[in-house]
């Protein structure tokens, strides 16, 4: 029996695949060029970075009261924004859910609104609300609420859509109206997923709330910006450390709650 030769290790790409690969490589290279990426500049900036780091240590400890007050404000903004966002997400998610809303124009409108909330960054919402309601944490809370709605409403709608249709059919067979299907079958089944999404939203809002201060929407970002603008790197380091502690604490608490609810 003649010995069979082994197949080639790699298949030769088709001309189209080869052209696509070359195109993708060119896009990546042009992106680096367009972004002004320069190893030489990075190298030249290293001493400056080392100097800033040196000035950051040790972090300033004489203004902890103000830092903590700003930190608390950030957390309040995140919690209130998330809570409002989750509450308003519920009706929006029901309207966006095919199983619960048979009217496609309403469904399309709800989905478009959710997409708008999600695609516009929270910083842009903060700029809009600062103009609308003035500087301060209220503008930041509204920005976080809208940002949460864009995220939570989409995942709530998906969670509602994915639930087993059996209990819903049983309730429909018992003469339940659509509100009955939602409250008695869909929401209880989707609840763990919705709680997990809400906790993720709280984490996201805590991180988001930190930077909203950069545009005057309250919270920790304001402290950080003032310290950086005044080249007071030790104070900036104190703010960064406080932000780190808050974000890690919220993430840990949220993860523990998620494990308890879903696990």
């Amino acid at each position, binding site marked *: 029996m003649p010995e069979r030769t082994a197949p080639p290790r790699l298949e030769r790409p088709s001309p189209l695949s080869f052209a696509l690969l070359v195109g993708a490589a060119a896009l990546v290279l042009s992106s680096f060029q367009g972004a002004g990426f320069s190893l030489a500049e990075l190298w030249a900036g290293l001493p400056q970075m080392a100097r800033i780091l040196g000035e950051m240590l040790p972090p300033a400890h004489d203004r902890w009261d103000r830092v903590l007050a700003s930190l608390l404000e950030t957390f309040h903004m995140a919690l209130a924004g998330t809570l409002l966002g989750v509450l308003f997400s519920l009706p929006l998610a029901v309207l966006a859910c095919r199983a619960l809303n048979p009217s496609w124009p309403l469904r399309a409108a709800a989905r478009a609104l959710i997409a708008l909330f999600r695609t516009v960054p929270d910083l842009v919402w903060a700029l809009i609300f600062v103009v609308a309601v003035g500087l301060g944490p209220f503008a930041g809370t509204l920005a976080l609420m809208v940002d949460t709605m864009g995220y939570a409403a989409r995942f709530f709608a998906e969670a509602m859509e994915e639930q087993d249709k059996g*209990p819903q059919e*049983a309730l429909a*067979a*018992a003469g*339940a*109206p659509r*509100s009955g299907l939602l409250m008695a079958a869909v929401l209880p089944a989707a609840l*763990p997923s919705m709680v997990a999404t809400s906790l993720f939203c709280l984490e996201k809002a805590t991180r988001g709330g930190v930077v909203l201060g950069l545009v005057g929407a309250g919270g920790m970002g304001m402290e950080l910006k003032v310290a950086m603008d005044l080249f007071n790197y030790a104070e900036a380091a104190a703010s960064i450390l406080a932000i780190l502690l808050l974000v890690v604490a919220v993430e840990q608490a949220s993860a523990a709650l998620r494990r308890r609810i879903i696990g």
Partner: protein
Amino acid sequence: MSATLTLAAPLAAPPPGPDDLRIEGLVKRFGATEVLRGVRLRVPRGQLCALIGANGAGKSTLLRCLLRLVEPDAGAIEVLGEDARRLRGRALRRLRARVGFVFQRHNLVPRLSALSNVTHGAIARAGALAWHQALAPRALRAEAMRCLEEVGLAPLALRRAEALSGGQSQRVAIARALMQRPEMILADEPVASLDPAAGREVMGLLAGLARQRGITVLFSTHHMEHATAFADRIVALRGGAVAFDCPAAAASPAALERVFA
């Protein structure tokens, strides 16, 4: 198609009353496949009627069409004196509330307690108060507990449905149907997912409660022994049409076997 066997022998107890269910020329197609082809069936009040047939014979589709959980393409359906095909919205929900439906896969809400699942049976008459046992008024909770007692599960009232065994879940589903105070029960292979002992027990429970309350029952099954033991009458579907209709006592094993041939 096997020979249609319609025996003239009188039905077993109880004596036939006015028809609770009348189906004439019922047709249902899924795409190019005609699943029901002109089904004609009448079930008198208080009768327990078994619907048998091979997989794909159209049993589940027929039962679902009766409450318009599946929309029929042609034919007439009269359920409890109502023209089911003409009803819309609230009127259709009112008719559905008068008919208990027991599904093959119990279809309970897994995260809710057995008691909450039973109160769901009253959702058409009690509205939001039946969404959860904690919201239900005292009388509604007491009635739900009585329904659970009738299926022998009162001690597990607050146990989550997802923690119940298959047989227990199906009993809760029967209790939910009883909570509707039904005049008729439709059961789609209610014991298909249970082991033989649990299946016989659940089937006996369903038949016993229905007889006690004078409820008309149409149930589909693959178990010939359940059809002959619990039903007054056996109707066989084959290829989407009635192929066989006779009193259970008169059904010969050979005729029953031919339905699945």
